């Protein structure tokens, strides 16, 4: 797969505060890439440099090998800012008409349809719901049929219905081969949409890879935990089972044969079970391990 976006060594400081420090990202055609990080991680700053809206202190960005400063590179990308970058005073249609003109586009029915706004296009944006504005915010970036769409937290503050509409639209765009760079601090969104992920914290990328890569690299596994009535040590436990007070942890994918063996063992030793749970690692755990803090404040 040819590489669409190459960002190398991006750096941006505000005074003494380094917001983005040596960030490099490569995205191949057709890929959905998630940039995950907590508030203030530097996601928006990175994205702003990638789309050519902010001059980096160091580093380069190319789209299909063309520096982002070139109009022909900008023509290839669609950017959805984190803010609702729309004119409230005029209609959705007039917004699209204006932003479309910047790309030489005068037909915007497709974009309206993709985000499900065809019926409301003549309403003033200011009177629309938050979800509608979010969708229009995305539609503006789709107008010129970009190769790469870059979305900076496009679902912040939207109702579940709009969020679903947005996701359906993005999934359908992905299936049509559009390359996506998606920024968020919602794990579920990344897990649902993205094939590759970079985790960002304090201005740096702390891990990068597929969801499985990330999970494996952190040595976190799926497993089963068994809560006991008392913390008396259990004898003869298999090697992959550890006891921590009243909790027994069985690591690895749940294996029925081994589980029944453990349950028999407990039965023989007369131990009472309070609960049994399967544990699966999610990005949240990975993130916690990587950064020592939770994704959401």
């Amino acid at each position, binding site marked *: 797969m040819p590489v669409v976006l190459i960002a190398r060594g991006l750096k941006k400081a505000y005074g003494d505060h380094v917001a983005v420090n040596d960030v490099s990202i490569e995205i191949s055609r057709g890929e959905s890439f998630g940039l995950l990080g907590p508030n203030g991680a530097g996601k928006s700053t990175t994205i702003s440099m990638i789309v050519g809206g902010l001059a980096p202190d160091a580093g380069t960005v190319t789209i299909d090998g063309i520096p982002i400063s070139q*109009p022909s590179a900008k023509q290839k990308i669609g*950017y959805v800012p984190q803010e609702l*970058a729309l*004119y409230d005073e005029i209609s959705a249609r007039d917004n699209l008409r204006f932003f479309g003109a910047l790309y030489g586009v005068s037909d915007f029915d497709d974009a309206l349809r993709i985000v499900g706004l065809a019926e409301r296009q003549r309403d003033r944006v200011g009177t629309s719901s938050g979800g509608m504005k979010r969708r229009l915010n995305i539609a503006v970036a789709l107008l010129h049929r970009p190769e790469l769409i870059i979305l900076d937290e496009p679902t912040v503050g939207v109702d579940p219905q709009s969020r679903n509409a947005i996701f359906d639209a993005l999934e359908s765009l992905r299936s049509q081969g559009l390359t996506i760079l998606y920024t968020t601090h919602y794990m579920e969104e990344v897990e649902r949409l993205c094939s590759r992920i970079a985790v960002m914290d304090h201005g740096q990328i702390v891990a990068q890879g597929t969801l499985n890569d990330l999970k494996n690299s952190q040595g976190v596994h799926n497993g089963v935990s068994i809560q006991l009535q008392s913390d008396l040590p259990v004898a003869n436990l298999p090697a992959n089972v550890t006891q921590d007070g009243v909790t027994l942890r069985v690591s690895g994918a749940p294996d029925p044969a081994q589980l029944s063996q453990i349950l028999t063992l407990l039965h023989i030793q007369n131990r009472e079970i309070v609960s049994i749970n399967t544990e699966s690692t999610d990005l949240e755990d990975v993130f916690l391990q990587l950064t020592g803090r939770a994704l959401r404040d």
Partner: protein
Amino acid sequence: MLKPILEFIRKDLLIFASDRRAMMISFAVPVVIASFLASITGGGESSSTNRALHVPLLVVNEDSAPVTKQIIADLGKDPSVKVIETTAADAAKQIKSGKSAYAITFPKGFGDAASKALMGGTRPELPSLSDPSREMEIGILRGVVIQTTVRNLSRSVFGASPGGGQLPFTEAKSSPVSTDSQKWSGKSHAFAGMAVQGVLFLSIEAAMGLMRERKQGIWKRLRSSPVSPGTLLIGRWFSSAIRALAILTVVWGVGMLAFQIRVQGSGIGFALICLSTALMAGGFGLFIAALGKTEQQSRGLATLAVLALSMLGGAWFPSFLMPEWVQKTTLIMPSRWAIDGFDAMTWRGNDLAAALPITGVLLLFAVLFTAVAIPRFRLESE
């Protein structure tokens, strides 16, 4: 390149029109104030709409020269003035008590000395007493006194009115209007002043709009588009200039239709002054937006700046009635040039040649303002 600029203008006009009330205010405020000022200043050329004001003017005559008598008689004929001849002591008393705002004294020998001064002799003093709190009245009265005095002196010496020249006395320090075609018109001037103040206030609104765009991430979105920063800047500049032009058109339209103001000078010159004033105002808007940090803070500062520019630039009362040092200093203000330009093309009746340098200076201001704004618009430094 042209399409995005046109769309920029269309979009901004739609936004401008979307808030009917704000738009009406932008148009109405300069029109209403100018109309008000025009109806109280009078002094216009057209007697049908010229309301007699009869502002009391205390005259103390210690001179016996015929020309001085003629000046006082002429002052009496001016509809904006009501001449009250009195003594120096009484004049002082009346001004102190607030009954009058302004008294003028023709000292002994004034007529002869001033007539000689026209030929190059030493200039006599023309003392005046005034109540400084009543600037409007003083402005009117001084204008009338200077005009009438100079006209009569010139007539008695040359038999006609010579153009320009130094005042034959040391009261007014500027080159006064002295030919008949250059008849000071308070109405015209009121519209010139308020038109310029109106477009400057509009610039603030345009700047606030730009700052809102920046806060909302629209600048980032625009910069991520393939349109060059220069084109974006021109789009913004022209779109505010066009709104300014709309205001100028409405204000002058009302002035011409309702107050019979005429462009007595060059029509092309007048159009050029309108255009360059609008471009200057557009640039001024960019300038405010580029320098400003928060909307509220900038609005306050910009409002102060516009009031100062208007007042010192002569929008409230004419520059030629201000002290000489003020007149010199205010040449650094675009408002002064714009107002002078409109004055020149309307009541002064100057020709195109007079409009060109003023247009040039206004365009220079436009370019300077815009140039200062460029770095901020080109790359987001935040």
